């Protein structure tokens, strides 16, 4: 992954609009958050292979990181704190936000084909 280049990401978001796509959306502060800090709360959510069609999407700079919103016919997909991106060899738009130690805090990925469903031990 590399630092977000807003225009490239925006172009890819536009390219993937108005068609069936698969989304991976995730945020987490880790399963050990309250183990190492009793005052912390464990929070996290992920949805993998949600099939959506978005009318349009936008990446917005917040100075330091980015927010990405995709407008669905009946709703929204949204991620905040995105810092890095990659368009991988499958043409998928992978975006993630990492903390100072390089740990993933948020991810938003958009693909024309489903993301791998489970650990494929025979791969």
């Amino acid at each position, binding site marked *: *992954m590399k630092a977000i280049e807003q225009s490239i990401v925006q172009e890819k978001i536009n390219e993937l609009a108005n068609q069936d796509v698969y989304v*991976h959306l*995730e945020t*987490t502060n*880790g*399963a*050990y958050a309250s*183990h*190492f800090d*009793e005052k912390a709360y464990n929070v996290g959510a*992920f949805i993998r292979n949600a099939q959506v069609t978005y009318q349009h999407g936008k990446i917005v700079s917040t100075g330091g990181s980015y927010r990405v919103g995709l407008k669905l016919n009946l709703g929204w997909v949204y991620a905040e704190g995105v810092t*890095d991106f*990659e368009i*991988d060899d499958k043409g*998928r738009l*992978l975006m*993630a936000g*990492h903390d100072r*130690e*390089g*740990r*993933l*805090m948020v*991810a938003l*990925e958009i693909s024309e084909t489903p*993301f*791998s469903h*489970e*650990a*494929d*031990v025979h791969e």
Partner: protein
Amino acid sequence: MSNQHVVVIFPHPDDESFGASGTISKFRAEGIPVTYLCGTLGEMGRNMGSPVFANRETLSSFRRQELTEAAKRLDIDVELLGYRDKTLEFEPKDEVADYLREKLEALRPSLVITHYPGYAVHPDHDALAAAVVAAIGQMKESVRPEVWMHAISNYHEEDLGEPDYIFDIEPYWEQKLAAIQAHLSQADGMMSLIDNHDQKSEQTARLKTERFYKWTFT
């Protein structure tokens, strides 16, 4: 010795290195075979290497390679159970237990090492360990392996008391470090968890002893 076989069952590549690799090395030094049944590929881990080299979609491939390397360094066999990281607690426990029992009946271990259900912090740890207990609980007493459990929650000793086995693994410290470092995407995160933690010396001391509770089937 020849009829002994240790099977280690944890959900994530690196659980074996962090929690039991000193003990594993001790068994290997005694010529006892060790097999690691690894539940998932840790594909939802937060550590992506330092500097970051993995992404959410490539992490599983890295972690599979890292596990292979760690297993080589520890001289153990690995079998992947094929579950998905962070979802084990949502799988039907009976199905996981049946699958584990099938694996264990093929491997015929004399000892199984797993987490202590309810005292293992990560939901995958607790869920897989609970399925291990269910699986072994169904086995006939005559073939039932001994079960040792690794408890890691902060106040587990208040509930469980002192562990039944406390191994000083200082003699195997090099193997343990090598195994931990084989998990490249995780190693920095794991070491900084230790270094950054308030009780640095206590955490390091903890790593140099491995402690297990023996489970009693009633």
